[in-house]
């Protein structure tokens, strides 16, 4: 996807010579000048194309403000995508008690990185959301539904305040809380405990290291960051459940043969290990249980203990792992006639779980016309970090 140049600036003389137009007409004309001219230029130059409602056409992106947040939508499907973005934002606010608030993320960074010069912190900028981000966020939050929003009141977590109440998207994070701290280009997401906020960063765009599909990767990043907040209470139990791999939160025991984390990143410390386990449990439960083929005691080994831990806390408030066609490489394409999968949403432990139907088209996070992983790509195959 390309960034499009803004419309050329019109100088004052030229502007004054033009007939006056009503504001709405002016906006349409601006659109026509920028997107229309760019579309023509792209057609002539053979630039990237996608299938739109009127056939092959250049991919045009447009930024709209939805509920106070900048959202990138397709020029050709602007109304529909803007409505979808608004519906997602409303849904996650109403259902999960989580607001989209990128300014809160910036404030969370500023509050946390106290030793970084103001000049650096004041250069933080919000980043426009893409629909794939919003769809992935909605998908990730659904996994935690029993302990979010109104449902939390009937869950086992009801006595503690919800640990995540807003999510934002910011261009860059800060690399370290020192006077030498600077904006970085590698942080995908970060949880800001004091602000009860999680931030997604531009570096997440196009990043696919753990999953071949960008939508899965984004969903995984959201699941991971949210786990830093929502699952923090279970950290000690997690350490105990990993059968001696961890001495404590920060130190491995070095015990030979102990079940290692599912990813290399999980080897950092027990908190990251637990969040990685949550990510894999919700997205690829079989991969967590059976591993990536690595030998026992090394990352990517079968993780039945971590799987059992996630399953155990899930029995209190989270849905069981989805035994669905989404697991591993068995996703059928939308429209194949078998598009309905079930993500059971436990209803606060009162009836052991209900169910919510999602269409595969909603769950596959890549919107039409945007890139997706090639079919059959090996799960977990390392790829270079795509940093914008």
């Amino acid at each position, binding site marked *: 996807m390309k960034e499009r140049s803004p419309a050329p600036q019109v100088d004052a003389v030229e502007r004054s010579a033009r007939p006056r137009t009503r504001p709405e007409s002016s906006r349409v004309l601006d659109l026509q000048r920028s997107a229309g001219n760019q579309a023509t230029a792209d057609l002539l130059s053979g630039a990237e194309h996608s299938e739109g409602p009127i056939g092959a056409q250049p991919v045009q992106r447009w930024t709209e403000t939805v509920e106070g947040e900048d959202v990138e939508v397709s020029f050709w499907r602007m109304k529909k995508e803007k409505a979808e973005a608004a519906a997602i934002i409303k849904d996650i606010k109403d259902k999960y008690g989580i607001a989209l608030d990128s300014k809160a993320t910036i404030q969370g960074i500023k509050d946390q990185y106290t030793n970084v010069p103001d000049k650096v912190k004041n250069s933080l900028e919000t980043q426009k959301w893409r629909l794939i981000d919003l769809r992935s966020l909605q998908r990730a939050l659904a996994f935690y539904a029993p302990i979010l929003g109104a449902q939390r009141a009937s869950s086992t977590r009801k006595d503690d305040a919800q640990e995540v109440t807003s999510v934002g998207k910011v261009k860059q994070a800060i690399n370290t809380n020192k006077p030498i701290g600077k904006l970085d280009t*590698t*942080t995908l997401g970060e949880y800001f405990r004091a602000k009860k906020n999680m931030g997604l960063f531009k570096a997440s765009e196009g990043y696919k290291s753990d999953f071949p599909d960008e939508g899965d990767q984004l969903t995984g990043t959201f699941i*991971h960051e949210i786990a830093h907040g929502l699952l923090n209470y279970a950290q000690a139990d997690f350490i105990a459940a990993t059968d001696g791999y961890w*001495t404590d*939160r*920060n*130190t491995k025991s070095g015990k030979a043969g102990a079940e290692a984390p599912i990813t290399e990143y999980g080897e*950092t410390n027990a*908190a990251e290990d637990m969040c990685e386990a949550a990510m894999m449990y919700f997205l690829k439960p079989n991969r967590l249980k059976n591993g990536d083929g690595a030998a026992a005691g090394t990352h990517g080994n079968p993780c039945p203990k971590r799987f059992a831990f996630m399953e155990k806390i899930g029995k209190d408030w989270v849905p069981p792992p989805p035994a669905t066609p989404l697991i591993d490489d068995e996703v059928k394409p939308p429209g194949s006639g078998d598009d309905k999968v079930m993500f059971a949403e436990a209803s606060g432990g009162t009836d052991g779980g209900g169910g919510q139907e999602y269409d595969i088209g909603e769950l596959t996070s890549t919107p039409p016309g945007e890139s997706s992983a090639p079919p059959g790509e090996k799960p977990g195959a390392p790829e270079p970090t795509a940093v914008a």
Partner: protein
Amino acid sequence: MAAGDVRTAMELLELSEEELLARLGADEDDIEPGVRYEGLENLSVLYRPDLFPGRIYLRDGRPQIIYLSAPEDTTETELRGVVHGLGVDLPSRAGKMFNHRVYVEAGIAISADGDEIAFVEVFPPCSLAEYEHDIYREPGPFIR
């Protein structure tokens, strides 16, 4: 863990395994073989939290490093009273917000976020190069 535990750890580091067991009142059965600590391998560990809060890693009959976990009743400022000189800052495996400050001449490393201490290492004084080569393992970037 108070600063006193760090001072005690520095004393314990000077002892032989036999002296250590006698000093703490521990038994040989309390020593678990076949472990490692970060870059240090082929270790055994003595951990009797009722006798001393730290994990004492041994090799060839001598303590190699003592690990003190997540104290609640001390601060980095207090611990700086135990060490002297300027520390060297390295990335901490405890998290992006944490800093691993190493005082190699004193043989102490403190991983902390402000006054919240994640852990303390006490080891024989050495050069920074030796510490980084033999003990320290740099965490990768915290990307999420």
